[in-house]
């Protein structure tokens, strides 16, 4: 019998929701790490009982937690994120040089092949790797020291490395995205990096088609087709058919193409999901209606999914890491809101229901499909 485990990070702790494969009744455990900001919780694809959590606080800094028993118990592991070599500077909000300074871990990405290998995307933007189950962390400095690094500038939420995609067909290929530098790719396991932003257009920067400087909010891929990438940019939904070398806009008939998360159906590589948000100054759904949009054509043609979602007076946001899918036959789709609801659909988005409500603001949602 299959089961589903939903890992939820919030502003004030982590929550773990479990259900059988019917996905009708949910048990909620938590808050874990009560009172701390949990930017991300993610399980290992190799051993689903191994879960990593990024726990942080403006007062007390960064902590990393690890569980070997599916979240029943936790142990603190390594939290020393020291930049490798000369720190250097990036641009500050006012355009002046600003020294790189570690603030927090935004995203943890466990390896698809080794339970003890895990990557961390941090603010100020850098990529770290652990090969001992998060006991110690070592920067992959080739990214931060890319020649464009001194021109990177933080987005409103800080200069965060928020997306890490590991190519399941090529262990040396890694994609990452940084707000507001853009997307980058490594083809040598993180040693060297190249910007992959050709085709992006951002009116908010002096040169709208610059090599770097784009505020990429999220990138997603389907495991079976890792050369096809989908991106939710600050504005614009984009697609690449060549591993990020070139991007084309696929916003199509979306009512607004601003948003944060984007994800891909577990079994249909051309079926993708976004949550349109009104604008960069009004971070809530258009017209107070919470709508997920689905494209079954890999973009351009979108349909609104509303059944079970609030269609009046809804002014929540859905953050970049707060959407995920399960891999049951009828693909489940999940997302969390800044209003503390986690919504789920057990039928690829046709019908939705809250599986928990009134949590603290949701920062991240990840899903484990358990056999």
């Amino acid at each position, binding site marked *: 019998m299959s089961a589903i485990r939903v890992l939820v990070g919030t502003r004030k702790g982590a929550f773990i929701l479990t259900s059988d494969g019917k996905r009708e009744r949910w048990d909620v455990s938590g808050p874990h790490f009560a009172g701390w900001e949990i930017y991300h919780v993610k399980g290992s694809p190799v051993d689903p009982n191994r879960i990593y959590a990024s726990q942080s606080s403006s*007062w007390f800094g960064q902590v990393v937690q690890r569980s070997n028993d599916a979240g029943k118990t936790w142990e603190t592991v390594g939290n020393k994120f020291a930049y490798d070599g000369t720190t250097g500077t990036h641009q500050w909000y006012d355009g002046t040089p600003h020294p790189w300074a570690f603030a927090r871990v935004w995203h943890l990405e466990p390896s698809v092949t080794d339970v003890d290998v895990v990557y961390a995307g941090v603010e100020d933007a850098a990529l770290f790797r652990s090969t001992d189950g998060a006991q110690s962390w070592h920067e992959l400095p080739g990214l931060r020291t890319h020649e464009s690094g001194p021109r990177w500038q933080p987005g409103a939420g800080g200069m965060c490395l928020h997306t890490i995609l590991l190519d399941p067909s090529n262990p040396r290929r890694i994609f990452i995205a940084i707000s507001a530098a853009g997307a980058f790719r490594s083809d040598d396991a993180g040693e060297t990096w190249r910007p992959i932003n050709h085709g992006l257009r951002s009116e908010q920067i002096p040169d709208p088609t610059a090599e770097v400087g784009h505020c990429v909010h999220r990138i997603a891929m389907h495991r079976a087709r890792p050369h096809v990438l989908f991106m939710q940019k600050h504005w614009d939904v984009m697609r690449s058919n060549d591993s990020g070398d070139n991007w084309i806009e696929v916003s199509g008939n979306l009512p607004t193409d601003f948003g944060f998360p984007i994800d891909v159906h577990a079994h249909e590589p051309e079926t993708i999901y976004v949550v349109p948000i009104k604008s960069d100054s009004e971070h809530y759904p258009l017209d107070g209606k919470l709508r997920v949009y689905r494209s079954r054509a890999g973009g351009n043609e979108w349909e609104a999914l509303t059944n079970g979602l609030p269609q009046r007076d809804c002014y929540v946001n859905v953050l970049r890491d707060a959407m995920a899918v399960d891999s049951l036959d009828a693909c489940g789709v999940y997302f969390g809101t800044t209003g503390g609801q986690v919504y789920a659909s057990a039928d690829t988005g046709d019908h939705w229901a809250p599986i928990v409500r009134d949590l603290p603001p949701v920062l991240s949602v990840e899903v484990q499909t358990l056999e």
Partner: protein
Amino acid sequence: MIRVVLPAHLRKLAHVDREVSLDVVGPVTQRTVLDALEACYPMLCGTIRDQVTQRRRPFVRFFACEEDLSHDNPDAPLPEQVVSGVEPFLVVGAMAGG
């Protein structure tokens, strides 16, 4: 024994009660007290002082004997009442926010 009072977030992280007692070898200073604290409770490394710079985190304060010692030299001797265990050394989360 040096008495150290921790804020709620760190007590939960370290699985301890409000106050812990520490053996401190040598001169009793902020640095040696925090070194001893982190040796006993390694999960607190990085939560009071930055892991790399060893500087006090901006929103952490150190109080003792009704004085704010946060800006004192970390190698300065702590008050005698702290050294003798009469008064605790308080690690405090600064008031911040609305």
